[in-house]
Structure formats: structure tokens, C-alpha cells
């Protein structure tokens, strides 16, 4: 079994903290993966908003390279990239002619054989079985697990977890010793792609997500998506301004929580890079 990783653009930039934590826990658990050589951007929201074919071609190139390098599975920590890759795989499987056309565009053969894993699937498969013996500092906090949109929708295609009130992240967190609260905003949208162009809307939507988590007494919001993280963390000043309040709840990646629980330093899992101070470690 050859495992690859597709970090995606944000993990090399604004979500370096996420990247660091993924690699840190992989190292701690002795997990190896190969970065997909010469990967490109998946096109994100921009591509499918403006150009459907492009939005399939960009992920197809990534998948084709992975295939060429004999990767049986690809870990995609970014939920947005995960969604684009799975949707592309689905669309091309459904329509062989479209697949041939896209193969022409990317000038590569593509068969759709690699299995795409999101970060929680990866954790479930490789980390959870060895987790118990590794935990040194149980993560004894009340957490609000925030999945966002793209991990569970479109549910018919992703076929991952249940579409309302998903549970996989809650289960991982409870294995770390955390208490996952009942949280209705799990899959509400944070505003995603409007972060820069309509910061006001993002402030409103992300603010609701933060407000409810705080209101329910959570110590932290746990996420598995760099986009959600940047909206809930980096945009906090805008959010606080919009809501005219001081939300203090930190937003951490599930991989960071795992890292802390197995005794890695806050530094190692990238906590210092957060905008909202994480006091819980």
C-alpha cells in the first residue's frame, strides 16, 4: 500500500499550522506518505464558479499524477480540496466520454484507481488503532466539533458520515478524552470563499458558529478544514468587530489536538501561528 498526500495550497501558506500538525503526528505514529510530485492547485471555489471544465481538469491532473506514481490512496487534509478531488473522481467515473475529454486536456491517462481519504478517515484508519497507548495528556476539554460544509456535502457523492449532525470527528475527539458537546452548527457554512470579497458575510456566519459554541460552554472549536480555520481564527478581529464583542474561544485542528494529547509541544503542532490565543495546552 503506497500512501500519498495532497497538501493543497493553503497548507503551504495560511494553514502552515495545520500542515505542521499533520506531519508531526504522522511522524509520531511512524506513518509515511509521499507528497504527490509537482502537484497543482485544485481550483477551489473559483474554478467551479467560473469554468466547469477547468474545475474538473485541475483535480484530474493531481489524481493522474498520483496514479502514475502508483499511489493507492491519497490523504487530503484540506476539506475543500478533498471535496473537489472526490467530486471530480465521481464525475469522471460517471461519464467515460467526459473522462476521455479531460484526459486530453491534462495530456495524461487517468483511470480513477486511487482512494481519496479525508483527514478523519486517515486518522480513523492509521492513528485511532494505536491512539490509546500513545495518549499521555488526555484532552480533557469540552469541544465543539465543527465539520463545515465540504466534509459531508454533497453527501450522495462523498458518502462520508451522516449529512446532519455528523459523528466521526466527535468520536475521534472523545477517544482523546474530550467531551464533544451537542452542537447544531456542525455543518453550517462559515462563509468560505467569500472571506476576502465579502468579509462582512463571513463575519456574520462565522460569528454565529463561534457564538453558539461559546454559549454552550465549549473550551475550543475543533476543525478539520483550513478554510474554516482561517475564517474562524484569522478573521476573528473582523468577527468581533461585526458582533461588537470579544469572542475568545480558540479554534484548533483535530491533528493539533491529537498532537497535544500524545505529548507533542504546542510549538511542534503550530499553535503559535494562531491568531486567537490557545490557552488550553
Amino acid at each position, binding site marked *: 500500500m503506497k500512501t500519498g498526500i495532497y497538501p493543497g495550497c493553503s497548507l503551504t501558506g495560511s494553514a502552515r499550522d495545520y500542515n505542521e500538525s499533520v506531519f508531526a503526528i504522522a511522524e509520531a505514529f511512524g506513518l509515511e506518505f509521499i507528497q504527490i510530485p509537482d502537484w497543482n492547485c485544485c481550483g477551489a471555489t473559483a474554478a467551479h464558479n467560473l469554468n466547469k471544465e477547468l474545475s474538473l481538469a485541475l483535480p484530474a491532473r493531481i489524481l493522474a499524477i498520483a496514479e502514475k506514481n502508483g499511489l493507492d490512496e491519497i490523504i487530503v487534509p484540506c476539506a475543500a480540496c478533498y471535496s473537489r478531488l472526490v467530486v471530480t473522481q465521481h464525475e469522471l*467515473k*460517471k*461519464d*467515460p*466520454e467526459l*473522462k*476521455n475529454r479531460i484526459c486530453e486536456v491534462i495530456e495524461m491517462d487517468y*483511470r*480513477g484507481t486511487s482512494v481519496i481519504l479525508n483527514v478523519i478517515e486517515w486518522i480513523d484508519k492509521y492513528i485511532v488503532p494505536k491512539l490509546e497507548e500513545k495518549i499521555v495528556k488526555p484532552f480533557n476539554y469540552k469541544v465543539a466539533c465543527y465539520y463545515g460544509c465540504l466534509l459531508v456535502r454533497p453527501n450522495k457523492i462523498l458518502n462520508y458520515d451522516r449529512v446532519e449532525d455528523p459523528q466521526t470527528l466527535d468520536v475521534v475527539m472523545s477517544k482523546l478524552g474530550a467531551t464533544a458537546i451537542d452542537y447544531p452548527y456542525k455543518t453550517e457554512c462559515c462563509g468560505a470563499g467569500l472571506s476576502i470579497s465579502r468579509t462582512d458575510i463571513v463575519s456574520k456566519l462565522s460569528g454565529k458558529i463561534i457564538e453558539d459554541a461559546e454559549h454552550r460552554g465549549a473550551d475550543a472549536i475543533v476543525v478539520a478544514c483550513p478554510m474554516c480555520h482561517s475564517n474562524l481564527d484569522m478573521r476573528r478581529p473582523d468577527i468581533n468587530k461585526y458582533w461588537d464583542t470579544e469572542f475568545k474561544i480558540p479554534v484548533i485542528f483535530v491533528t493539533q489536538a491529537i498532537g497535544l494529547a500524545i505529548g507533542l509541544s504546542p510549538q511542534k503542532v503550530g499553535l503559535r501561528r494562531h491568531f486567537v490565543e490557545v490557552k488550553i495546552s
Partner: protein
Amino acid sequence: MTSLIIRAKELLENKTVQVVIGYEAGPTGVARPAFITDPAKAESLIYDERCVQNLAVYLTKREVKNIGKMAIVATLPVMRSIMMLISEQQLFADNIVVLGISADGKLLDIADNKVMQGYIEKSDLSNPEKYKGLLTEFNKLSPEEKFLYWQKELSKCIKCYACRQACPMCYCTRCTVEVNQPQWIPVKANTHGNMEWHILRAMHLAGRCISCGECGRACPVGIPCHLLTMHLTDQVYNYFKVYAGTSEKMSSVLSTYEPNDKESFII
């Protein structure tokens, strides 16, 4: 076509199938059906413009079926034939691997019948372009001209039944022509009896014909009998908005109905 050969070889080698039905070049270079059972022989498979025969006709032949699980080089008409044969319980879905060929001659990755169904549904299912014009022209003739035309054409028929043998949908073990209680179709060839035969054949294919044109190609005396079934294919779509061979669950037009089927001639 290397991708086809590789795939065929792979299927035979890993014993996914026992026979690959495809085309090979005959001694004179004419494409002929090939039944490959030995992976080493997969090299002889070809696919190009010479390959026109509807191979699906072999899927119901006992000699072929007995070899085991089959893979078949399948252009759109073959895929549609397969759907029809599955829907009419002459073929089991898990007994067939489809080596799909796209309209521009490329190997398609048909993982399962659902994918095949998706491909078929997206394709143009109307009659082949080259016959459409002919049908339109023919329809412009007066009834008398049509009647004379078919009389002339059908007077040539020698009742060899090549049209029936070539058709993947004509798989009955006993055909109506072999029934003599009553004698529906006269045994000997004569123009009127020939006409009765061709009407019967076309009616039996109404809603089942997948427009491969094989019947017309097979006719040794050049009767364009495929126009009859193709005309009905047009009409089936015209009235019922369906084309044959689009899913393995479809039931044929003449064995189903909608209460609001429209017609304009019943008083």
C-alpha cells in the same frame, strides 16, 4: 488499438473472462469476428472503421455462452443490445464485461452496467446519420410509390432469413415463420408472403430495435429491410420518448403502456 489489446489480455490472464469477443483482420484484410480465449492471441484484436458488425448477436449463441464469462468489444449499438438482452433475460449482467468503444473509436472505461447506462443515456440514440436522410426522403413518397417500392424490393427476397440471423434481438429458438398451426407466413418465397414476413419482423422489433442496421447489411439481395425497423425506432421515440437498450431494467414499448399515450387515429 493497444489499450484494447492490453485490457483484453489482462481480462483473459487474470481469468476474469474466458472469452473476448472482438474483431480481427481476416486473410483479405476484412474485419471478422474473433473469439479470443488465449491471452497470447489477444494481439490479433483490431478496432477501426472496418469493424461494423454488431457482435452482440453472439452473446446468445450457445457455443459462445458455453465457453464461460464473456468480454465483448462494444460500440454503442452493442452496448444497447447488451442492455436489451439483459432486460429480456437472455444474458446475465454478471456474465459480461464490456470493452466499450466511444464514437471516435477510443476505449472507454466501462466499470459496470451503471456506467454503461450513463454512457448510453448521454449518447445520441437516434438512427445513424447516414440513414436519417434516406428515411426522410423515403417518407416524402406517396403511398402508392411506397407500396410499389416495397413490392419491387420484397419480390427479391429469397427467405434466407439472414436478416433474422444477424439481428441480436432475434434470438427466439422458434420463430413465428416456423409455426404452421396456423401457417402465419407462407413457407415459399412470394412477394406478398415476403412482405408479411418483413412486417412481422419489424413489428417484433418495434421498441426493441437498437438501430445497428445489421439486418440490412446482412441481406444478400440488398433489400433495405433495416429501414423498416429504423422507421419504427423513430416512431417509438416520437410517440413514447424512449429508445431501446438504455437500461438493463427497461421493458419494451409494446409490453408496457402509459394511460395517456397519445394517438390521433382512434375514433
